[in-house]
């Protein structure tokens, strides 16, 4: 398993406003890590840096001891797969074609399409339940199917590490759970390391092996959901008064916001 590690990274966008400063993170191997935090806490920015979409102003991101910004980008693409927020497929692109493009890092101009590619694409379609929709254009699918098509592309890429930025955005609850279960399948069955940004704290608690809580560009707490998510931490990170109980379904922490209008019994 390749190791993905950020050391002392400072991240900023074009306007030079520093979003993340002096941050260290080692992505735990073979587990699902979830980054949580309020809006503008730098969680997507951190994920983009791990995905080499953003070059750190200081510090570095290393994959197996080599800087990912100095490695050939194709070589990184055989180790790290990424799915940014809200990707848009060109009009008329079929599901099968989209998933097939996930094989790009394994192809050369003299070696375009192999039996392995065919197999990996068929497997990705099967895992995501899209085999019957392979000929349909992506833009004609429902939101949940479309997101599964993009995940299928990332699966076909066959990387040991997957980085996903809010993979459940714009999906209804049933489809959110559907996508998250699929990600767990990938982790448990194929041992892929997953790092994702999630908005919903309770879903994060349910699906994370490892939680990374961020505030103002810093990691405030890191560890198993049960250790990390406490009422005090949620108040510190999100500025939200809440109570944390054990989720009656899974036993993971369940965050119940208090709000201003509740009269608490007893």
């Amino acid at each position, binding site marked *: 398993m390749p190791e993905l590690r950020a050391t002392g990274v400072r991240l900023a966008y074009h306007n030079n406003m520093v979003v993340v400063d002096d941050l260290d993170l080692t992505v735990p191997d073979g587990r699902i890590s979830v980054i949580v935090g309020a809006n503008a806490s730098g969680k997507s920015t951190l994920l983009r840096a791990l*995905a*080499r*979409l953003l070059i750190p102003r200081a510090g570095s991101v290393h994959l197996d001891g080599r800087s990912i910004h100095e490695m*050939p*980008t*194709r*070589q*990184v*693409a*055989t180790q*790290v*797969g*990424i*799915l*940014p927020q809200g*990707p*848009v*497929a*060109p*009009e*008329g*692109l*079929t599901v099968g*074609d*989209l998933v097939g*493009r*996930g094989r*790009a*890092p394994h*192809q050369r*101009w003299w070696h*375009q399409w192999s039996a392995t590619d065919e197999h990996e694409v068929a497997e990705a379609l099967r895992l995501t339940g899209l085999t019957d929709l392979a*000929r349909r*254009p992506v833009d004609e699918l429902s939101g949940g199917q479309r997101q599964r098509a993009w995940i299928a592309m*990332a699966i076909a*890429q066959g990387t040991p590490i997957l980085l996903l930025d809010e993979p459940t955005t714009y999906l209804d609850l049933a489809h959110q759970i559907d996508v998250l279960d699929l990600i767990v399948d990938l982790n448990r069955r194929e041992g892929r390391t997953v790092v994702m940004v999630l908005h919903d704290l309770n879903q994060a608690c349910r699906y994370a092996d490892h939680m990374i809580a961020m505030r103002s560009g810093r990691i405030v707490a890191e560890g198993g959901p049960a250790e990390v998510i406490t009422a005090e931490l949620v108040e510190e990170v999100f500025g939200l008064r809440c109570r944390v109980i054990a989720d009656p379904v899974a036993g993971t922490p369940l965050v119940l916001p208090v709000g201003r209008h509740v009269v608490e019994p007893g």
Partner: protein
Amino acid sequence: MPARIRPLLVPACLAGATAAAFCLGLAMGAHWVDPVDVVRALAGSGDRFALLTVNELRLPRALVGLLAGAAFGVAGAVFQTVTRNPLASPDMIGISAGAAVAVVAGIVLGIDPAGLGLAGGLLAALVVYLLAWNQGTTGYRIILVGVGVTWVCTSTTSWLLTKAELYQAQQAVGWLVGNLGDSTWQDVPALAVSAAVLVPGVLLLGGWLRTLQLGDEIATGLGTPVQRARLVLLLAGVGLVAFATAAAGPIAFIALASPQIARRLAGAAAPPVLASGLTGALVVLAADLLARQVQLPVGVVTGVFGAPFLMWLLIRKNRYA
């Protein structure tokens, strides 16, 4: 399985139609030359009249039409794919206009226009790149900047024409509408070499085009060196447009329309490179056949048919974008 045959069948049919239009272009004209005599003339035998008409007059014209059309089509497919915008073809964003102003300057100042066309196209591309690209390539920004660059180039061209001698201005205006009527063997070598290098080059880089269609971030994730890929592909596109423009003039709408026609014929999500080039060649050769019947330059014919096509594309883009 029809879905698998179509990507092969469409270019094959287009190639057949292009070959037919090419041969018809050699046979048709002020005097009809029988196809048998055309073939014999090409082989170097037959009577002197056929040899002269086919080999010296019609063959260079047909070759320039074929190569320039293919170059415009391929360049249009590259630009539209890399920018993910069907309107951002080189003739819409000032690349052709940049090449044109340089070529007109060459005619007026008496300098060989082929190299100048490349310089003008590159300069226009650089200006568009600096003004529009840093904030991302998609959207209307690139079109607006391109329209601005086109206007600057067009007014400079007009100014050059007012300064030119009458015979120079006549030559320049005749060329500016896009004209194959004056094509000679002199126009062929530079165009042929550029097409022979750049078209296969773009075809080999098809993998980059396929990932760039999905957006810069996804393309990076799939291992495409986005900045370098975009630069190389666009430079190839500028080169194709510049040499084709220097040889045949800025034939209107070929770079814009051919990739969109090819895309619909092939039922693809983005313009297929090979089919776009073949469509460009076919449209130019067919338009030139028509142009000869009505004694007009080919650029007028493509302009008449291209304008409604552009409007249709604008309406569709507004509705779906």
